[in-house]
Structure formats: structure tokens, C-alpha cells
């Protein structure tokens, strides 16, 4: 196992508001990690910094030993919590796009998944239902053979059946020697797939442990322990 994600004294401020307050974190390959915290705890900010969509105020963040940039973007697959694909494009156009820009994109794998959902090749994204669009986004992201996957709230706002599909897709498609970081506040749904949990509270890490350790030490599920830590 090697360190694929590392933050040292990472701070991100928006004006006078500190979204991240000195985060120190090391995550290794071959793990599925839950980045868990309530809304506004800094999960999305941390993921945006890792994808160079934001610049840190101070401190460092590295992906496989490299600061975020074109080099890390080539080995990082990111699923934002937004509709991020151009809605005028067709399914096969999106496959071409991913194939053109990401050398690690496995088109065959993506096509098989799209076929299993009966999504036509020439269907325009705009004409798809919200659920189908989200599945297409997930399929494209998980069809990359990336070193690090960042999945920001992948199951928020979808029905239970879609949640199962999303989690199955993640588990069935990630590279075993890669690192998967899933940000969510819906702990109960993802708990079964996680190896480790990172609790983020008001921009600070309050816990980083394996799921088994949390269960053994607290005698509670991660979801129950999360509710206790973040009790209002």
C-alpha cells in the first residue's frame, strides 16, 4: 500500500470564514474511505482543493506525491455533486469525449454498463431523466482506471433502488489498488462498503479510523457513532 492522498496543515478560507482549519490526513491505496460530516463541514471544499478547483490558503495537498495540476488530473476521477456534463451532448459523444481526454478511460466497460441500463447511444443528455443522467455521470467516472476516485455525495437525492445501483457500480468498478473517497452525510447507506471513515467537523478532522476499529471501540455502527459526534 502506498500513500495516494496527503494533506499537511491544509487551510482554506473564504474571506473571514475558514472552511478548512489545518487538515492533516494521509490515505492509502486499496481503500474505500468515507469522508463524513454534516453540511458545511468542509467535505466539498477538500475535494475541490484536491481537483484544483480551488487553491489552498496555506498548507499542502498532494495526490500520489504531486500537487494538484494537469499531472494529477490525468489519474484522478471526480464525480461532483452537480450536473456537470454538457446537456446537449449525446451518450456516444460523451464516450468519445472521455476517451479523447482520459487515456485511462475504459470505453468498453462504460458501454457495457450503459447497455445494461438500456440507455441509447444517440440519446441527448437533456432528454434523460435526472436519475438516468446521474447514472451516466457515475458510469463515465467509474469507467476510468484512475488512481484516486473522488465521489462527492453520489447517493444524495436518489431513490433507494438507484442508491443500490450506484454503490454496486462503485464496488464493481474501482481499481483494487486505487483509493476511493466518498463524501456523504448518508452514512447508513454507504457504511457497508467503507474500509475507513474520516469525520470532518467545522473544517477539522475529528476522527480517522477503520470501520472495524470504530465498531469495536464504540460498540456502535458508524452511523450511530456519527449521530452521537454530530448531535445538534
Amino acid at each position: 500500500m502506498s500513500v495516494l492522498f496527503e494533506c499537511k496543515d491544509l487551510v482554506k478560507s473564504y474571506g473571514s470564514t475558514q472552511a478548512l482549519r489545518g487538515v492533516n490526513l494521509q490515505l492509502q491505496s486499496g481503500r474505500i474511505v468515507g469522508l463524513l460530516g454534516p453540511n458545511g463541514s468542509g467535505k466539498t471544499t477538500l475535494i475541490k482543493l484536491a481537483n484544483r478547483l480551488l487553491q489552498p490558503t496555506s498548507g499542502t495537498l498532494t495526490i500520489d506525491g504531486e500537487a494538484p495540476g494537469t499531472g494529477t488530473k490525468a489519474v484522478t476521477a471526480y464525480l461532483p455533486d452537480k450536473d456537470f456534463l454538457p446537456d446537449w451532448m449525446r451518450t456516444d459523444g460523451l464516450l468519445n469525449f472521455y476517451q479523447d481526454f482520459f487515456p485511462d478511460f475504459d470505453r468498453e466497460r462504460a458501454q457495457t454498463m450503459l447497455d445494461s441500463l438500456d440507455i441509447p447511444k444517440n440519446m441527448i443528455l437533456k432528454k434523460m431523466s435526472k436519475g438516468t443522467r446521474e447514472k451516466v455521470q457515475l458510469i463515465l467516472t467509474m469507467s476510468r482506471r484512475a488512481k484516486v476516485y473522488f465521489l462527492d455525495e453520489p447517493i444524495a437525492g436518489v431513490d433507494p433502488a438507484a442508491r443500490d445501483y450506484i454503490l454496486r457500480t462503485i464496488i464493481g468498478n474501482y481499481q483494487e489498488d486505487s483509493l476511493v473517497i466518498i463524501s456523504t452525510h448518508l452514512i447508513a447507506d454507504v457504511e457497508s462498503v467503507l474500509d475507513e471513515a474520516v469525520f470532518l467537523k467545522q473544517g477539522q478532522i475529528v476522527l480517522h479510523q477503520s470501520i472495524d476499529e470504530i465498531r469495536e471501540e464504540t460498540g456502535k455502527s458508524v452511523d450511530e457513532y456519527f449521530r452521537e459526534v454530530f448531535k445538534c
Partner: protein
Amino acid sequence: MLGKLLKYEIRAMGRIMLPLYLVMIFAAGLFAVNMRLGLSGTAKTVVEKFALITGFLFFAAILAVMVVMTLMVVQRFYRNLLGTEGYLMFTLPVTTLQHIVCKALTSLLWIVIGIGAGVLSGFLMVGILSNIPEFMEELQEAWRMFFSTDGLAVRIVLFAVLVIVGIVESVCKVYAAMAAGHQFSGHRILASVGAYIVFGIVELILGTVFSADNKVFGGLVGSVGRAVGNIPNGSMLVFILVALIGVIVYGGLSWYLLDRRLNLE
């Protein structure tokens, strides 16, 4: 990677612009045919009405091309880079400079094609309305003059360069205004318009400072002006240089704001 970006960007703009240009050329042809029929004197009143309608259609098409082109320049940058699509575009293994160059070159390409389509429409109308062999002869004569008149070819080429650099400068100014407007957390479109106005005011102030009438710099500007006046096509070269400075300033500002101060919603 720039080539790949260009491929998708040209397609994205082309799916809107190309049909519009074809409509403009078609409307020009239709208008000219009706005009010619009207001039020949057959079924005058009906043809005149058609000529009026098709004439209106042609000018509406020209107006639509100009409005849509402007909107496309704005929309492709704002939506594709600063909107939610930015989450895809800025996570591609591509540099910020490549994104800006791609957007500016594609806008330039479609504007130049638009100018070409406009010229083609003009030729089509003249061709239909006049005697075609005569028209071709006049064209050949103009071509001969282009090469035989001293310095005309150089002047026209320099003018074309000025138009191209001027278009890129205008496009970069719009990009910089949007990137600046995006620094605000709310009312970003309004802030972008505000930034564009501020850029205009700054340009105006600089224009006043560096004019021959200015008390401080006037003498210097005057002597530079006289020196430039002695160089063939000197003023044209100065305009090109000023436009190039604009490209660097506005392009550089866009790059800085997108690369170092990006804040997608």
C-alpha cells in the same frame, strides 16, 4: 490536448452558427432572385411583395447572426468554464491557458467564417443582380489591381491582421470581465457587466493620458507619432501593437482569475 479541446469547441459553436450562416446565405440568394425578377418587370406587384419579405428576412438573418454570435462567445465561456460544466472542463488534464486559447481561437474562427459568409452573401446578391460574366471580369480586375498597386496588398494584409487581433482582443476583454464578475459570490452576471464597463473606463482614461493633447505625455506621444508617420503603414502597425497589448492584458487577467482564483458555484 489543445487540438482535442478545439475539436469539441468548434463543434459546440458550429451546431448553432453553421445553420445560421447557411440561412443568411440562402436569404441573400432569395432576396436577390426576387429583386431581379422585380427588375425584369414580370408580375411586378407580387414579386415586389416577395422581394420586400425576403429582403426583410435577409436583414433579420444578418441581425440574428450578429446577436447570436455575441451570445455564443459569452455563453460558451460562461457556461462551459464558469458554470457547472466547469467541473468537467477544469478537471480535464488540460492547462488553464489551453482553455482560454481554445475559446478565443474558436470564437475568432466562427466570427471570421461569419464575415466570410457575409461576403459570400454579398457576392451572391451582386452575381444574381448583375451580369455574371461582367461581374467576374470586375473581380479579376480588382485582383489584378490588388497586386499591381504599390503597397495595396501590404495594406490589406495588415488590415486583415488588425481585424483578427482586434477580434481576439475584444473576445479576451469579454472573458476577463466574466472571470472578474465571477469573483463575487452573488449577482455574478451584473458584476461581469460592471467589470466590462470598468475596463472601458480604464481604456478611456489611458487613451486620454496617452493622447497628443495631454500636458504630461503629449510631447512624447507627438514625437512618437511623427516617427511612426515616417514608417510605411506606421499607424496601422501601432493599432496592431495596441490590440496585441490588449490581448496580453485581458488574456493574462482571464488566466490569472481562472487559474488562481477560480471559485465554481
